[in-house]
């Protein structure tokens, strides 16, 4: 098995284990080819709803964000996107994106990371 399918199994098993709780995924895209990330996100959306799990994922990958946007579009009420930034005082600030803003940023190649 390649790294990608191993990663997918890890995520699915972690989701099942986290039933009725939360799951934290660091660097979501690790091991996943860009072309499958949308499908993986769709699986996560589906399973998270079915298993009642709140998933938090971090990424620095535009491919991951593209895949997330694709899945989010199918289930707008289930997702949220935040960009974390340090302000001038070094405090972390969270900027919430609507689906519309995220789609516009990806479409016009404006940075979202």
């Amino acid at each position, binding site marked *: 098995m390649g790294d990608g399918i191993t990663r997918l199994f890890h995520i699915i098993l972690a989701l099942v284990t986290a039933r009725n709780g939360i799951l934290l995924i660091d660097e979501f895209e690790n091991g996943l080819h860009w072309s499958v990330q949308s499908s993986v996100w769709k699986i996560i959306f589906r399973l998270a709803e079915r298993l009642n799990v709140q998933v938090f994922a971090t990424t620095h990958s535009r491919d991951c964000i593209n895949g997330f946007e694709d899945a989010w579009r199918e289930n707008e009420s289930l997702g949220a996107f935040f*960009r974390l*930034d340090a302000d001038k005082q070094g405090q972390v600030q969270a*900027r919430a*994106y*609507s689906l*519309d*803003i995220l*789609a*516009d*940023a990806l*479409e*016009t190649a*404006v*940075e*979202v*990371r």
Partner: protein
Amino acid sequence: MAKDWCRYEGDAVLLVEGENDCHVVLALCAKYKIPQVFGIYQCGSDGQALRRINALIAGPNPPRILGLVIDADNPNLGGRWKSIQGKLSHYGYTFPEVPSLSGTILNSPNEETRLGFWLMPNNQDDGMLEDFCSEMIGENSVGAVCECIKLARQKGCATFKEVHYSKAVVHTFLALQDEPGRPLGQAITAQTLKPDTATAQAFVAWLNRLFVAA
């Protein structure tokens, strides 16, 4: 590689729909000696311009100043103003009911970016960049050009849509000048189109208020 004057990304940016808009603004900036304190980004279409302004405000290191020059068409001035407000409704900007005649400038307590809007041609009428430019044609010439177009229509060799009448006027005029067929920006630089109309002066004053006086 040569510098692309119409693809500027920075702290103070004027977003425009297309290349013609970019070169018209560049020519006006040169003519009126506007200080080079901002750059221009041509987005490719009206829709892309709205998407880009929406994305830039929320992005990391958002521009300090963002201007948008967009045609008052698709479908008209009121509809265009509503579509801008709708697109930016999640930010804290308070839009006036109608665009300001001298060009709208908005600040928000929640956002770092100061916004400016100019709806072509004059923030008042439905229209587009070519309406703004066709005002720069001398009055005698406009009459002759309209006769040309009328004749072409009678002869059945004019296929343009009525909504593009001002495009037909300005490009027919430019087709008959020395040298024929100059693009709009170059025609302003060459003074074939005379950029001293009240509307052009109001536009330049808006640019100065938005970018230079900020």
